[in-house]
């Protein structure tokens, strides 16, 4: 009845459905009407072209942070430091945007590149420590998150601005904002970054599945001993994977830095773009197309949720619960897999 491939596709869909279902019961339990709630969510995400633009805008960094986590996963690494890499990418893009005076054709690519390089550098260090000394990347990347957050805050306050809480806006020449996309969507903040994100997804797919380098990265991810036996340099592949993962994360930061906001501010806490990327990657099954779809779902839920308090009186916290439920069901996919296989067996 189901092939294994179909089961793999069905699991996230069933998870999402179960998450929404449990969310409905929770709304019901707290005395809200779940139909009105979800209708408000839908309208908040797709109700008109402005909301749709905002949804796509939110999807953009999620795609990239999801790709970052997924890429590392495929090489057997758990990059929990995407959050920090997003922050340094954000900062770098804004800094280059402010510090340099150049025509757009040079300035904008330079700012984007700076973000990717900053994220890559932030991924390089944990990769190096893992490859050379066997230090677990999870611990190092968690710590690197804090270093990124507070370094960025300090630089914003003391170096890039004069004691202010945020930097100046980046000039037009270094901005991803698009008059055209904005006007299409009733002046939402949708920007050209979406194209970069989709392009990055295509790159990840191509790199992992079509190149000899990708073959090595995947082999190392599955079995380091066999990779060494086959003559691959395991350490170099680990470092490379963290660098590429970090570059994706850095780009996610640029989406916010020179796309959505146009500045970097002193942050009280993490942006959560990186942490949400873990969930996006998990839901997307760590493949490029899956990440794009999962990011779309997350963006929809995040933006749609903003309309739930006004549209149906449902608090946004509830949406966070629904998202948490979805992740819960994805994480417990074994349960769903077991159930699907049982159905498969009985259906035979």
């Amino acid at each position, binding site marked *: 009845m189901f092939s294994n491939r179909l089961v793999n596709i069905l699991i996230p869909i069933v998870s999402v459905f179960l998450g929404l279902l449990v969310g409905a019961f929770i709304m019901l339990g707290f005395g809200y009407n779940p139909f009105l709630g979800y209708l408000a969510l839908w309208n908040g995400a797709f109700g008109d072209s402005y909301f749709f633009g905002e949804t796509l805008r939110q999807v953009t960094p999620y795609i990239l942070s999801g790709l970052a986590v997924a890429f590392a996963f495929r090489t057997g690494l758990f990059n929990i430091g995407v959050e920090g890499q997003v922050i340094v990418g954000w900062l770098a893009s804004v800094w280059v945007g402010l510090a340099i005076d150049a025509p757009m054709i040079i300035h904008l690519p330079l700012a984007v590149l700076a973000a990717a390089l900053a994220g890559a550098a932030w991924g390089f260090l944990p990769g190096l420590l893992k490859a050379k000394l066997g230090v677990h990347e999870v611990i190092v990347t968690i710590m690197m998150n804090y270093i990124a957050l507070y370094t960025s805050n300090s630089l914003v306050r003391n170096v890039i601005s004069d004691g202010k809480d945020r930097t100046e806006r980046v000039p037009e020449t270094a901005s991803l904002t698009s008059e055209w996309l904005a006007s299409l969507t009733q002046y939402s903040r949708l920007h050209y970054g979406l194209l970069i994100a989709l392009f990055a997804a295509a790159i990840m797919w191509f790199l992992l599945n*079509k*190149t*000899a*380098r*990708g*073959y*090595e990265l*995947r*082999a190392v991810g*599955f*079995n380091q*001993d*066999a*990779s*060494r*036996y*086959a*003559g*691959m*340099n395991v350490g170099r592949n680990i470092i490379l994977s963290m660098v590429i993962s970090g570059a994706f994360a850095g780009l996610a930061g640029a989406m916010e830095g020179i796309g959505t906001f146009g500045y970097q501010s002193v942050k009280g806490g993490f942006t959560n773009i990186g942490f949400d990327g873990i969930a996006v990657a998990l839901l997307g099954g760590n493949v490029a197309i899956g990440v794009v779809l999962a990011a779309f779902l997350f963006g929809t839920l995040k933006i749609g949720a903003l309309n739930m308090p006004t549209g149906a009186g449902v608090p946004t916290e509830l949406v966070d619960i629904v998202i948490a439920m979805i992740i819960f069901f994805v994480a417990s996919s074994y349960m769903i897999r077991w159930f699907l*296989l049982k159905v*498969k*067996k009985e259906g*035979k």
Partner: protein
Amino acid sequence: MDYVIEMLNIRKEFPGIVANDNITLQVQKGEIHALLGENGAGKSTLMNVLFGLYQPEKGEIKVRGENVKISDPNVANRLGIGMVHQHFMLVDKFTVTENIILGSEPKKKGTVDLKKAEKEVERLSELYGLKVDPRAKIRDISVGMQQRVEILKTLYRGAEILIFDEPTAVLTPQEIKELIEIMRALIREGKSIILITHKLKEIMQVCDRCTVIRKGKGIGTVDVSTTNPTELASLMVGREVTFSTEKTPANPKDVTLSIKGLSVKDTRHVEMVKDLNLDVKSGEIVGLAGVDGNGQSELIEAITGLRKSASGSIHLNGKPITNLTPRKVTEAGISHIPQDRHRFGLVLDFPVGENMVLQTYNKKPFSKKGILNYKEIYKKAESLIEEYDVRTPSVYTKARALSGGNQQKAIIGREVDRSPDLIIAAQPTRGLDVGAIEFIHKKLIEERDKGRAVLLLSFELDEIMNLSDRIAVMFDGKIVSEVNPEETTEQELGLLMAGSKQQKAGGQ
């Protein structure tokens, strides 16, 4: 006749496959009953049904004449059925006694009564001649001893019927001898034994009767005293099997591999290979005999570049390859069939096709300018699968889904196909059934006849004796003796492997 265990017309299905189809197994009290079958024939499934891990779709199980339903291993334990697993289930850091009582600890005022347990373990150990120290830690004792702990675990729980799952696969020849003694002692004390195996010699040696299953079906039960290995093998495989591999005398030419004064340290910095010298010529198979742990693995890792050597030199065709990276060694002309095929030989989550180019994926025609050419990769894979009789649904199937024998054939196909000057085959037939072994032996001899040098590491004396043109015995990190297989006996080899001082073999 009284049967202590009767499994009647057992049927067990898994999605898409019938693992056991109408199998009957009747074990008499006080006998050693062999359960013989190829890999994947359904032996383990049948035993897992008996042990309560699987529920059969059809059939009945009787223990001592009474119908029982074994819903989980605890029920099996209560019925006096114990299993000695092939892969030991022991806690490394615990003592022997602690492992044995795990799950059924004797209590005294809420604390574990270790003293009492130790006494009981000692008593059982003495009764069956196991010679186990109840206070030793598992990680400090040999594999053979660990197996005895597994046996004690079942005895401690009052097992009357012991299932041994391929018990000799991990043992040295000496340890196998001792295990056989232990099994006989168990029978003397009134226990019954089911021995899962595909080694015919062992069956002939210790078993009373033998039930053969093939491809999930029961073929029948024979009295061992009235049969012979050839008959058993054809029952198991379903066709005639030749045992001693036919080969013409070797025609060795130039020295291909030359090792001089090689020393290698293991991860703990203990010197495992000590000033070792060895030559392998083209057109000959050199068998490396020895008890596991005498430096064989380290030697091979040093040759293949997986481990740095401390001193000495390794030359291939006169060119130095000491301490080159694995890739450089491969490119110099060495193929390596690794001892642990799951850990080193394959990326199990890769499709069979991708596994076939594990070393050559970055070379033409499999990739060009860094871009993979899957058409060429799968074309190569298809032809290797055909030539080496790898049974797989397709080249897109994950290697994990293949049986051990087919995984090994895939590795051998890949390694031999590179036309290397030297093939290092480490335990190439470990855990495989006679059909696959026959095939692999033939291939290795074919390669020898093509003028390649073959270095064979094996813990199976039969394999060493059958295949080798020259046997190098390794003990304590050195080649202690080189013997001619035609002029030596298994007894003599066993002595040499145990480090007996006898220097020149064959002559005396």
